[in-house]
């Protein structure tokens, strides 16, 4: 008798459990709908914004990748007009470079996130010292690997799968913290997202032109390249990524991004070490049978807002010259 009672209880418990889950899901959706707060599922707001842009954009002809240097220096609309102006059809271009997007970050970002969304024919990889320096990039890789949408492992994969259908799961970090829903945390999240929106152009390009050539910035940049050694992991990452892209019929072009004289003065071995960076990019291109474009005349201090990023006018002229060079090659 007790056995049959136990058996009859099981379906009831099951139904009750399902009912609780459904009610919680409904409550979560209502709450998130009313609160209207951003939920960060990527490693930074800019990345999250770019994913949204890419999802809306769909297929493009060309994608730019790299660090924030590539993001700022290569302006898709100008590059597209330049290529078209040189007699070719106007290509659609999206700049998918990321802040701190060194090669070990670009590899999973491009192969797992960008290609499916944009399906480009050509990938333009802007490269410079920070892409190759052993001392730079771990923090971004660390953050990337910890973000909800890019974390690896079976639990993370299952979590992402469930999050696609469940607001309760997708937004649980916000839901369990009232401060993130209605308090200062929500405001801060909105502020950070707004700042990211202000710094990302419609084609993914970086539009932060705040001048910062101060001593602290100088020290930070020096720290990223001191001691200066080539990062074997980054070089290998480039090689692997390019190999995959080429195997899929995608053309890859390396672009050597300019740095100002004030940056070159920070090399621990002096400005001559920049030649090593240039040689490395050329050698890498040779190994991988990739075209490389290096443009002269963009290294003046006054063309940069800081130690690595071009100002708006020079970014436009650099992109224009890049388009002309691409066409000629």
């Amino acid at each position, binding site marked *: 008798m007790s056995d049959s009672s136990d058996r009859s209880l099981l379906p009831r418990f099951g139904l009750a459990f399902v009912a609780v889950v459904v009610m919680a899901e409904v409550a979560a959706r209502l709450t998130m709908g009313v609160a209207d707060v951003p939920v960060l599922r990527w490693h930074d707001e800019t990345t999250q914004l770019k994913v949204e842009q890419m999802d809306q954009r769909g297929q493009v002809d060309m994608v730019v990748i790299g660090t924030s240097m590539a993001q700022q220096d290569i302006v898709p609309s100008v590059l597209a007009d330049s290529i078209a102006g040189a007699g070719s059809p106007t290509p659609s271009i999206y700049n998918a470079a990321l802040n701190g997007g060194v090669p070990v970050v670009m590899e999973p970002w491009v192969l797992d996130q960008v290609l499916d969304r944009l399906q480009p024919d050509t990938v333009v990889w802007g490269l410079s010292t920070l892409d190759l320096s052993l001392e730079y990039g771990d923090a971004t890789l660390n953050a990337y690997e910890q973000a909800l949408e890019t974390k*690896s492992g079976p639990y993370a994969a299952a979590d992402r799968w469930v999050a696609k259908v469940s607001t309760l799961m997708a937004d649980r970090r916000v839901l369990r913290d009232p401060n993130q829903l209605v308090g200062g945390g929500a405001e801060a999240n909105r502020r950070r997202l707004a700042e990211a929106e202000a710094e990302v152009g419609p084609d993914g390009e970086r539009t932060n032109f705040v001048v910062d050539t101060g001593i602290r910035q100088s020290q930070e940049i020096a720290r990223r390249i001191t001691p200066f050694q080539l990062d074997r992991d980054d070089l290998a990452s480039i090689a692997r*990524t390019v190999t995959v892209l080429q195997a899929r019929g995608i053309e890859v072009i390396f672009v050597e991004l300019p740095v100002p004289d004030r940056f070159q003065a920070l090399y621990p071995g002096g400005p001559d070490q920049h030649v090593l960076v240039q040689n490395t990019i050329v050698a890498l291109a040779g190994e991988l049978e990739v075209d490389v474009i290096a443009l002269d005349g963009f290294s003046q201090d006054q063309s940069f807002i800081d130690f690595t990023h071009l100002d708006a006018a020079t970014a436009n002229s650099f992109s224009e010259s890049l388009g002309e060079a691409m066409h000629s090659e």
Partner: protein
Amino acid sequence: MPKPSRPSSVLCCLAVGVIAASCGSSAPGGYDVADRVIAEVGQPAVAVTVDESECIRTTVVDGYGFEEEVLDCPNGATPTTIAAASPLVEGEPLDLDVVQALPGELPTWVFDELLSTVPDSAMLEELEGIQATINSIDAACGSDFASWRSAVVELGDQAERASQQINDGALADYVGTPAGRALGRALFERTVLETGCAQPGRGEPVNYDQAVGDGTLGDTSRSLLASAELSRLLQAAIVTDLFHFFSTLPNYEWLRSQRDPIDLVVHGTSQAGAAIDVALLADLTGQSVGNAFLPGSLAEVQQHWFPEVDQYIRAPRVVWLMGAIDLLIDCEPNDRPEQFLDRLENRRRAFANSGWFRTVDPIAVVLGPPGSQRVAPGSGDKKTASDAAALEAHLGEYAPRFGASAFCVSRGEVIAAAAQRMVDNGQEVIIVGMPLNPAAIDLDPGIVAETAGALETLRSTLPAGARIVDLSASMQSDPDRWADLTHLTQSGAEEFTRLLATAIDGEG
């Protein structure tokens, strides 16, 4: 032409029946290309190294007693190691930078050579007397206990007199100079480490009870501490080479004096020292409690400290406090673990060469036998009110790192490994997420979720038998509970201790 398509990671993985981390993101290899490129262009390290002697050496000691040695080299070049570049050669002029930087032990003759750098004075005579005594210790070391003991006691008297003279102003222009620092190092090695011992390790072990009873252990430890202190004064350092300023020494005092078992031991940084009211936690849990916190010591140091604590009290319950600083903000590795190990090794090697004390706890050799009085289990100092200046200083230090923080992955691995060892020892491990100061939340509201997320990440790496109690979302409304960014006041400690007592027994 149709574009090549690539299934997403999850679909790719499901297609082969597993959801695996390796799915999707990378092709294998690439290092062959990397190596060929580097071979072609050349790795630049060789071009930017210089001999250390070309660099300006500065040693900074922080408030915790940890030292940071800064080498300012031309053009930011990387210094080559002294050992490879400039070995010491007897009979040739000494390079004082080399003496300071040389790894391992200095040759015994270095101390004699360095005496020639001491200005002619009464202090020089005292130091020459110490030199003669050291020679007597060397001769008797490991072979003649009575002579060795007598010489060691004499050394203690001489070292105390010399220290007094320095404290009175002698050698004011000498201490702290490269010569003074070198002499201090050499003195420490010749006395405490007995590097000139004639028969190292050959001494017949003393009977501990007898050595305590007849005063031998007290006399020799007094001499040892006096030598270490004289070494410190010559180096113009704020700590001896035996202990860090705030770390370990106070802990040894209470750990050694325990007669009854400790049920619950607290670990952590100074944050843990300030956060726990030991007596209150004992009352609330009904267990005996001790706080073995180490200021300035994150998990990389703590992992080396736990076995030391276990020698005296292997508490069945370990409560390890950590906060946003541990998990998110201060991820950069530093050389504090190496410094901790250096001093730990010095304590273990103190007078070890003689062999007389090989069966005695090294801490008893250094500090003498424990007193008969029980010292109350450790508890950190508590401030009674907020310190606005301290808060501002902390914010200035940490503010640039807020907002760009990510879980400290390598530290997480250290924590998990340490927890595993404790679990293997049969200990229950409770890692507690510390509350966040409202000022930190104002600075970076996202820190609340990030801290909770970091604890979640950590939780997934812990072994069975270790658990996390997350109190990071508590105590966020009352700034008066905080003395500065990370340390609670006395009233804050009481509130936190109550929360902790409830949580650790409520979430088990």
